[in-house]
């Protein structure tokens, strides 16, 4: 592993739920590079270094699965699609989002009995959803009147996911297949 890059500012950082043991974390730097650490943040290296032609791919969002220990799933938003790793960021493949080069602004992985539910919020196209581990994606924007999604969150207590937009917060009770204005975010 290379030495820790100096002078970078983290735009977004996520850690493995098993960080004390695996020391895995990902950073999206200010220049939109994706960096990975395997030693609890002591050193960082480009996550896409082993992907031909993808080393300088800009990353717009990052998310890891709450079941990372079991499924090793890491998602990274790239222009027009989502990068996916199933081995904690060692190898990556990329799937396009439908439409005209949607820009991913946020990602969310929700654990489920039938496999994880993956959601991608975008700058202009709403929320895309994948139920096959990120192979294919489709936009499900019914009831979501603002397609500029700035954050996705899950509320396990209420069994909902929420999408934050500049005009308010929307909630979904069916895993992102439809949305309604969330009273607490209006």
């Amino acid at each position, binding site marked *: 592993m290379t030495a820790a890059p100096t002078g970078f500012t983290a735009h977004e950082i996520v850690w493995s739920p098993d960080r004390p043991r695996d020391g895995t974390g990902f950073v999206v730097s200010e220049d939109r590079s994706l960096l990975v650490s395997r030693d609890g943040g002591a050193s960082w290296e480009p996550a896409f270094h082993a992907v031909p032609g993808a080393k300088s791919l800009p990353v717009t969002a990052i998310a890891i699965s709450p079941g990372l220990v079991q499924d090793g799933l890491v998602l990274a938003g790239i222009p027009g699609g989502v990068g996916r790793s199933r081995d904690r960021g060692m190898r990556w493949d990329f799937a396009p989002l439908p439409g005209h080069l949607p820009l991913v602004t946020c990602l969310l992985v929700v654990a489920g009995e039938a496999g994880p539910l993956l959601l991608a919020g975008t700058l202009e196209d*709403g929320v895309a959803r994948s139920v096959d581990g990120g192979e294919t994606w489709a*936009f*499900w*924007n*019914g*009831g979501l*009147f603002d397609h*500029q999604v700035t954050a996705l969150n899950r509320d396990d207590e209420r069994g909902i996911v929420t999408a934050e937009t500049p*005009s308010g917060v929307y909630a979904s*009770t069916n895993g992102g297949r439809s949305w309604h204005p969330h009273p607490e975010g209006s």
Partner: protein
Amino acid sequence: MIRARPDQRIVFAPRSHQAFDRGVNAIALAVRPTLGPVTRLVAVERGIRTISPELLDDGASIARRITSLGDPAIDSGAMYLRGLLWRVHEDAGDATATAAAIFTAALAEGRRAVAAGIPAQPLRAAIEREAESVVAAIAAQATPVAGEAMLRAMATATSNDPELAFPIGEALDVVGAYGQIDLRKGSPHGSTLEFVAGSFWESMLLSTPVFTDLVRQRTEIANPRILLTNLDLESPSDLIPVLETARADDEAGGLLVVCTAISPAVAGFLHANSDTERWPILVARTPAIDQAGALADLALLTGATPLLKEAGMSLATWHPSLLGSARTAWSTRTQMGIVSGGGDPAAIRSHVEALRGRCDPRSLDSGAIALRERLGRLYGMSATIRIGGATDAALTHRMAVAERTIRVLRGALQRNAEAGGVVPGGGVALLRAWEASAPHLDDGGDIETAARRVIRQALTAPAGAILENAGYPVPSTLARLRAAPPGSVFDVTRGCVVDALAAGIVDPAHVVTAATRRALHAAALALTIDVLLHSGDGTISVSPEGRA
């Protein structure tokens, strides 16, 4: 002295009661097989014996096909119940067989009370008072509708068609009470469901059709600029500034013009400036149905300001800020749609909330349907269910069942409704409503006691009919139900007592309350009818109060 025209006939009590009740019972027996999950169909001959009969399983339609029973006096009762069932159908969309069971039981018990000396008019008033308490007791049992599984269970309970219930439940889970669901005829092998992203209108393509997707006969524009108008575009020169502005926008991927008509010169001009691959131009006709509403909604979704003929606007007054935008616009020969419009989200949200406040998702009124369609488009996702059927008769029947089921479920989903949500099915909500007031059976005077006995018989009747239809002994099964915990129902398909919500044996609360209220009020009124007057031509007058 009683006078009547020679061609008129007057029927007095008790013969009027007997004839009226015979007519009521004939209709009630015709719709009774349709009650409960183990239903049977009624086949209606269409008048031509060489074509297959119409297959019906809803009481209102069955009753509506019965126009005469031969004797005008008997017809009076039949038409009275027929009218009630149609009103229940219009109001609730379902539960007409339940209403018929309640009505006949209430009428029979009421007749016994009147025969025992209880005066009809005070009895009517007492029954109507009790009916309101019953309706409140039913509504108090309602549980909010949540999730695809419950919707599917409700769809199964309403349609008695699990294969059809599957896509209906899923579609409503996604598009909600106000969303757009198109029903189309599909293959004989089964029903399918697909979702369409964005909003679309029925709209003829006016420009020369050059499709980017040849298989689907569809052209798509990425990041279009959008001109909305209800003007006829006749001069190409008027469109030059519009085209120049859109072309000057680096982010624009093409132009969508929505107008009422274009001249051949304009069509040629736009075709010459359109590049299907790199910068397409589409011209779609302003939707003809509810044009003002469609233009207003398109404007809101895209952020465009429409050029309106009525406001004296023209392309001469056009300004670049009037153009709207979207992430995608598409057009086929007959439809035009937009995805992720560039309108103000907060304005769209408040517009939708305002429209919802005016919209009854169950209503069959044409204004309500138009409003619902607008809301469905604004929602941003619609569903298309292609319904399968082995024969034409089966397909027609399933289409009607699907329409009815969707309408019932929309009502259950409606928020802030008087009685939204679901109650235990199988007639159990009615039994529990009765039990809530049962301790007071003998409180008050003779009239109140008689009214409560009428209510008891009426509310027990639907559960009894469902059990009978499924072949179970009524008294012992009802006794098992009464001993079961609250929220339990008897599952006639499995022969055991189960939790209603867990098993999905539920009925929409608004349907049960509507059927109960209307049936009890109608029965109470029917008890006051003593004289039937009918003329030779077969027309009938029913006199509620009318002693000559």
